[in-house]
């Protein structure tokens, strides 16, 4: 049935196919090698049948290697985020590039920033601003100094002063976003860094799971402590196997799932109060949420998740009050800048690269609220900073 097989590119009446167009194939496009690479490193979508699918992938791919010709593939610069496609967005980039800065710590790019005030105030992704010498590149191709002024830990946003004049505050979009609308991530260059569409409407994003170090007794649905992980907060606070958890932060609980559900809302470093019942006695324990890193105490009980199927993700990728999900493939060090619509207005601030298919942006209204809060604390911070000389990024 070979004649029934799809013949997309060579179908008669096909308008100028990209392969036969005068555009030279880009140098980075090397089909046979690429085909081999793809087939050799196919990763299956369906964990349970991984091996079977990889075998399937080989069978699926092998015809490509045999019959592959230059005109069967779209040149890479015509991809959704290819250079040619990005050129269509050039007018947006030109309109917004003076509202964007690119932060470096000790000379290494760590994030973009969104200018929110003509006097040089910008917002960015706080967890990427590591300790070190903070500078930033401007659209004018100048590198200037910058000082960290304040941080909103809950939403991972930092307020930074940039030593530059002539910056243009970003224009925030009013109104709702819609699934399928363009979501553009401009930078300080002529064309955007990347583009995508809104994948899902704004919603709360729970934090990465952190732990108090209790393994429940699985012989009962009750929230009864089975085992304590040495070195984590529950063991340190003196909880014992057999203890019943009666409440978490004042919310009464009667089964394990309720406890887990409440704890899911707390991120690493936050503290919860657990009401413990032991025989006739009841007491409160204050427990710090921890994510044991490999090599630390308790790590063997909380193994790191497998790599995210080849995607590079932000270290702080989860835990936001509200976020827009979009499908832009954004490098983690290019978060912090605005996410704009086709009118060049910011619908949000890119806050995390979270998975192969997911980038999160804080919605415009939330960002403006965060800015107002940080800005109201700024005079005090700046006075202190002036006294101390150049302020260093706090170690976090």
């Amino acid at each position: 049935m070979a004649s029934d097989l799809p013949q997309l590119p060579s179908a008669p009446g096909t308008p100028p196919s990209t392969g036969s167009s005068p555009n030279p194939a880009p140098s980075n496009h090397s089909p046979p090698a690429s085909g081999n690479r793809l087939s050799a490193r196919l990763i299956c979508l369906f964990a349970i049948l991984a091996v079977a699918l990889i075998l399937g992938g080989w069978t699926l791919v092998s015809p490509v290697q045999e019959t592959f010709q230059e005109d069967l593939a779209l040149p890479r610069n015509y991809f959704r985020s290819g250079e040619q496609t990005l050129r269509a967005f050039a007018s947006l980039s030109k309109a917004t590039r003076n509202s964007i800065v690119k932060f470096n710590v000790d000379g290494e790019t760590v994030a973009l920033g969104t200018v929110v005030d003509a006097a040089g105030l910008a917002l960015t992704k706080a967890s990427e601003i590591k300790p070190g010498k903070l500078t930033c590149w401007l659209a004018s191709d100048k590198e200037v100094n910058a000082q960290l002024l304040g941080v909103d830990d809950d939403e991972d946003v930092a307020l930074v002063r940039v030593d530059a004049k002539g910056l243009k505050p970003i224009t925030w979009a009013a109104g709702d976003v819609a699934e399928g609308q363009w979501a553009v991530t401009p930078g300080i260059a002529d064309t955007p860094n990347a583009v995508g569409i809104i994948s899902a409407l704004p919603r709360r994003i729970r934090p990465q799971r952190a732990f108090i170090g209790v393994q429940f007794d699985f012989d009962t649905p009750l929230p009864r402590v089975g085992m304590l992980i040495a070195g984590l907060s529950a063991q340190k606070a003196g909880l014992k196997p057999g203890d019943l958890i009666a409440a978490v932060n004042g919310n009464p609980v009667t089964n394990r799932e309720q406890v887990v559900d409440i704890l899911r809302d707390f991120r690493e470093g936050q503290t919860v109060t657990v009401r413990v019942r032991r025989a006739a006695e009841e007491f409160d324990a204050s427990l710090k949420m921890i994510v044991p890193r490999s090599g630390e105490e308790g790590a063997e009980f909380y193994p790191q998740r497998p790599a995210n199927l080849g995607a590079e993700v932000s270290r702080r990728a989860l835990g936001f009050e509200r976020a827009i999900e979009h499908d832009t493939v954004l490098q983690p060090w290019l978060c912090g800048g605005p996410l704009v619509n086709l009118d060049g207005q910011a619908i949000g601030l890119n806050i995390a690269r979270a998975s192969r298919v997911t980038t999160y942006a804080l919605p415009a209204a939330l960002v403006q609220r965060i800015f107002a809060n940080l800005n109201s604390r700024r005079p005090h911070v700046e006075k202190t900073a002036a006294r101390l000389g150049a302020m260093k990024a706090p170690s976090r």
Partner: protein
Amino acid sequence: MENIQTPGPAAPAKTKPKEAEPPALPTPAVPKPGPARRQDLPAAFSKEVPTSIADLRAIEQQVKKLVRQVSPAVVAVEVGYASGSGVVISADGLVLSAGHVCGRPRRDVLFTFPDGRTARGKTMGVDRDADTGLMRITDPGPWPHVAVGDLEEARLGDWVLALGHPGGFDLKRSLVVRLGRIIRAAPGIVQTDCTINSGDSGGPLFDMHGRVLAIHSAISSSLAENFHVPITEFFDTWNTLAAGGSANALASQPRAYVGASAADDPAGCRLSAVEKNSPAFNAGLQPGDLVLKVEGRDIPVSATFRRWIAEAQPGETLNLEIKRGDKLLSLQVKLQTPPDGK
């Protein structure tokens, strides 16, 4: 591939009534591509590449419209222990999915629509070579559905919409919408730069008329080069799919059955349920057991455990190291062939 059969118009119903099966539905006919004309689309879709904000607006408008139009028919599917995606293509509930999501015929399926509504059904036929699979909602319809497309009309560079439930169904998030272009095509494959992920498998790739052009199949090491099974593969394997058959050696191999379900737990792979009189039950496994090792190899997550079972043969004995409370136990599980309907 000798298992590919010519799609006949309205394949004659040749279902034999089987004992203990629900009332046999007529064998569904090969779906016909929905009507669509390229010239009805905005001019931006006929360009090699958009060149202006006006082009981008035209694309955006069409994409937003399509998302509203086709979303209700895109389902999350749970088959056995795992989840994927699918798309409903008829009012009585025929669902296209990937072969590797279906696994094999006559398995129970739970469908979840984007609004959270659920429906029960069964896997029908599967072709593991083509990675095509068909399912049917057995609850009474009518169900939201979409038309299938015609790959012969598709071209390199066409804009396409990938929908699905990456990571499984999440009511607060629901469907995830992605846009890309057809970047490569070859017999049996459509490749796009739509980003897809685990859980998208079986989900639909739509053309700009809102018709199903392909089904998500596999990802590559590059985020921008993913694989989809063309709709033509479904037409070519339709007789197998509609008759509830399974084509190719992989699918007809007997599957090993353990009778325990496992879930990810902060500590690793924890058994969430053990069926009575199953191999797991007979070996002494209990819900709550933490599976540390199989055949001496670490089991960091539940998927690793399931993969061991998926790769094993019935009759094989696996050595398990488990943790129950603070006790470490070694158990042997002798796998069996699955009982009916599993």
